């Protein structure tokens, strides 16, 4: 079971994503932005950070990296892909997920442990969670406000494609308190909070984040 983790110039959280894959008993494989070869991985994590310095728009340049064209093709073929924070922004820019992430409503960079509700436990990345489970996951972003036009929001709600929602006060002005969404086939998930930072009580606020990585391993074993 191989989970690829992409490193772009400016990526920060690839090491923690690799560690999370290892915790879930998967074999992490480092993928380089300039290499279009996915090296036989079964799933891909696009981790957080500031790819290309967030120049132009968050994720706007990363989406054109050689590795991303392979990821887009693989995702269209059903490969599970998880975008975390900057990775979520990249997947939106790449068109794998609808909507966009814009500057937080009050302009503050938000860094805190955030409660989320799991709204959809049928995606490739969330089957280990009970429906409606509340999980504690670090959030650290300045451009994490999820926006989409009303028709897209209605479609996401109608199809149950909102995967994670902020519990309590909305930290960044996201429409409908949305913290994470999924693709129509439930294989691609993006979220702003960082489950890879919550895999061990020694180093995070909880180990709630592990559920995502165990879930994808389950989905690959079952495939």
């Amino acid at each position, binding site marked *: 079971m191989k989970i690829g983790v992409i490193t772009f110039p400016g990526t920060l959280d690839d090491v923690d994503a690799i560690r999370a894959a290892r915790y879930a008993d998967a074999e992490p494989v480092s993928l380089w932005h300039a290499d279009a070869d996915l090296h036989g991985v079964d799933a891909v994590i696009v981790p957080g950070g500031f790819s290309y310095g967030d120049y132009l728009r968050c994720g706007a340049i990363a989406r054109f990296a050689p590795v991303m064209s392979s990821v887009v093709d693989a995702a269209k073929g059903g490969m599970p892909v998880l975008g975390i924070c900057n990775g979520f922004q990249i997947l939106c*820019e790449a068109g794998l997920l609808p909507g*966009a992430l*814009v500057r937080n*409503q009050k302009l503050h960079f938000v860094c805190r442990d955030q409660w989320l509700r799991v709204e959809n436990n049928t995606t490739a990345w969330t089957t280990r969670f009970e429906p409606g489970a509340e999980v504690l996951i670090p959030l650290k972003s300045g451009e994490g*406000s999820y*926006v989409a036009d009303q028709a897209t929001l209605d479609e996401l709600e109608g199809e149950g494609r909102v995967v994670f929602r902020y519990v309590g006060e909305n930290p960044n002005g996201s429409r409908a308190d949305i913290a994470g969404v999924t693709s129509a086939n439930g294989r691609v998930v993006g979220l702003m909070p960082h489950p890879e930072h919550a895999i061990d009580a020694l180093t995070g606020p909880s180990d709630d984040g592990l559920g995502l990585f165990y879930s994808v391993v389950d989905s690959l074993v079952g495939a």
Partner: protein
Amino acid sequence: MARVVVDVMPKPEILDPQGQAVAGALPRLGFTGVTEVRQGKHFELEVDDTVDDDTLAKIAEGFLANPVIEEWTVRRLS
């Protein structure tokens, strides 16, 4: 050769907290009467004669702007 200007602005329905912060700072500086500020991006491109208007539109729509959240205009200056 020609100089082309691409202006990118947040769509009217998209909250622009940066523009709001600028608008909020103006009265503190003693400037009154500015009721709204929207902040966008301004690009200047030097292009040769092989770059036609269709290509410029593709550059603006597909890269310089994100049509989910932004509007764009292209102007040739010369």
